[in-house]
């Protein structure tokens, strides 16, 4: 807690580095730090390649030159105005989804925990479906419908699960129940809708960042930055919560306020992403698990989770845009890439244990 700037990188016995941060020192394990650096490098590289790929191809040096050129040539327009919003959105949204997943998995102490369990994603889909079917398919009405649906669902789950406090287990079960009902409703709406409407709903549900420009990206980034500060503050009590309610209480954590704060932050993160891009599945579930396995850490590492999420989404978006015969929604690529990668990690883990 009391580390001063002079002690910024005090070495600790077991290959740890301590950094001061709001809400308590960040202890960097050496392997975690290396993994973090590697993930950052991969993310930057993927971003540069993405910026250079498309109908107007540019090499990586050309991309860098275009970004810092002041003459406003065509390359600069392509890179900064057309491609950069999408690339930044992929990185930032990926990170936000990953952190949101880590928050939920810590809070429920369940590897299947994700914002989906509180019904946000399913509720957002219901809201979007109702908007599409009742009002018609404008981007704005779908977004508003999704946000309303998601937030109302999350609120309903929280209230239904509240009984002298929230337990992780009760939250999961109520989440299952409400999600199942909404899923059934969604199935029914899809079944009843015209084929065309149903398919455009299915496209929305797959999640896409193809149409994102600066005007949507900038406000989203501002909100996400504010949320990132809150997550940093909550990181220390969250670690305690992972150890179990009793242990956390013994360490002086006030369970209910912390849980509610985590819940709000986790839902807010996913809400921002869903509003702009639709429900991009699986990043929130896979990123914390992948990061934990890469870094070999005991808990869910937040910084590496964010980096993993960013890499996952930017890689998926690159594949979705350029590597497939026809462009598909990025959410579909995310689940395939993330899933395959998680399987690969599990296989490797099994080999090491033999």
């Amino acid at each position, binding site marked *: 807690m009391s580390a001063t700037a002079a002690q910024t990188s005090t070495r600790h016995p077991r290959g740890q580095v301590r950094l001061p941060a709001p809400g308590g020192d960040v202890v960097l394990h050496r392997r975690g730090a290396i993994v973090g650096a590697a993930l950052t490098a991969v993310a930057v590289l993927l971003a540069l390649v993405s910026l250079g790929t498309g109908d107007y191809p540019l090499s990586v040096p050309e991309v860098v030159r275009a970004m810092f050129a002041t003459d406003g040539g065509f390359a600069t327009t392509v890179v900064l105005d057309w491609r950069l919003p999408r690339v930044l959105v992929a990185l930032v949204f990926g990170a936000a989804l990953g952190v949101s997943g880590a928050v939920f*998995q810590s809070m429920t*102490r*369940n*590897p*299947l925990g994700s914002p989906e*369990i509180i019904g946000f994603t399913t509720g957002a889909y219901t809201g979007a479906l109702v908007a599409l079917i009742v009002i018609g398919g404008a981007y704005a009405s779908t977004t508003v419908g999704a946000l309303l649906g998601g937030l109302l669902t999350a609120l309903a789950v929280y209230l*239904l699960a509240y*009984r002298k406090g929230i*337990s*992780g*287990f*009760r939250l*999961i*079960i*109520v989440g*299952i*129940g409400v999600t*199942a*009902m909404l*899923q*059934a409703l969604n*199935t*029914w709406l*899809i*079944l009843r809708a015209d*084929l065309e409407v*149903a*398919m455009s709903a*299915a*496209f929305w549900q*797959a999640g896409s960042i193809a149409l994102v420009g600066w005007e949507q990206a900038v406000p989203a980034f501002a909100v996400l930055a504010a949320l990132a500060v809150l997550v940093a503050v909550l990181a220390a009590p969250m670690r305690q919560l*992972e150890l*179990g309610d009793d242990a956390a209480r013994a360490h002086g954590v006030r369970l209910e306020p912390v849980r509610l704060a985590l819940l709000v932050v986790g839902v807010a993160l996913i809400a921002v992403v869903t509003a702009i891009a639709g429900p991009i*599945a*699986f990043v929130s*579930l*896979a990123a914390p*698990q992948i990061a*934990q396995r890469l870094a*070999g850490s*005991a*808990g*869910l590492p937040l910084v590496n989770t964010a980096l993993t999420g960013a890499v996952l989404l930017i890689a998926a978006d690159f594949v979705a845009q350029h590597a497939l015969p026809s462009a*598909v929604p990025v*959410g*579909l690529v995310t*689940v*395939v890439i*993330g*899933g*395959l990668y*998680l*399987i690969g990690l*599990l*296989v490797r*883990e*099994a*080999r090491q*244990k*033999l």
Partner: protein
Amino acid sequence: MRSHPVTASATSTPTATPERRSGLAHAAGTRTLGLLVALAVLALVVVASLAIGSRDIPLAVVRDVLLGGSGGSTEATVVLDLRLPRTVTGLTAGLALGLAGAIIQAVTRNPLADPGILGVTSGSAFAVALAVGVVGATAPEQYVWFAFGGALAATVIVYVIGSAGRGGGSPARLTLTGVALGAVLGGITTAMVLADPTRFDVMRAWQSGSLADRGWDGLTTVLPFVLVGVVVALALARPLNAMAMGDDLASSLGANLAVTRTLAVVAVTLLAGGATAIAGPIAFVGLMVPHVARWIVGPDQRWILAYTLVLAPVLLIAADILGRIVARPGEVPAGVVTAFLGAPVLIALVRRSKASGL
């Protein structure tokens, strides 16, 4: 082994909490009585399922038809050719899904686990999407085998990857592998489906999970596998009881964890794969009914399995009947109604102070 605080603590079952050791019905007598009541309710919904529909048939006529009288009449055709196979499908799929759910929750010790977690649902959906796209199948009896084969293949892959390594792998690994493979297959399925409106149309019907128009063909194909699954599942009750105490304690008591897990996966595959093949992915039954059974009878797997065996088909058939009534003359698929019927019960149960020990 590396420590996984997050994953490892998922092993604390709802049943392992002292406050809830005994469930609502404590004595064996109460439990037997409860089971008999449940059986009576099951008989009631089966009869109702034969009598209720877009054409209501009096119970006396149903009885005559079943006993071989009034053959050839319209009522006889409706009861014997439409409603009887439909009801038997509901019975089979219901009990199969329920048992599969109870087993998978016990083995993975995760209250979020449903039969789909081993890749059954996603494997089936993937194979059906392939069948519709490549072979051009459009009728249910054409893709029964695809659905079943896809479920089998996916589960085998999940099991091989998830249980590799020392000691047969942890439940958390099995769960994560299932989720990961399910995501991969689901993503590819959606991409295939979105590329082709015809495929999308068939798939949205299949994915709603319905008991209507199934006929006898698919049922007779799948029934032997489901029966084997039921036998294996029931034989697992005792070993699963031992496993509930935790891996270390169970193996020191002489339970063979690897064999139990393997048999459990076999049972879940046969049961859930069979059910999905005949009725499509009906999501909620396998997840919810074991929870309800556990709240009634406590942590003893023998009682949980017995109650699940009876209550799961009650939920599914009742949902199917309700689906025929609410949107007359149309129908709401059973897979849609189950959640609306079951979820409020589940939420009410978890809100009871006694049931929220964790």
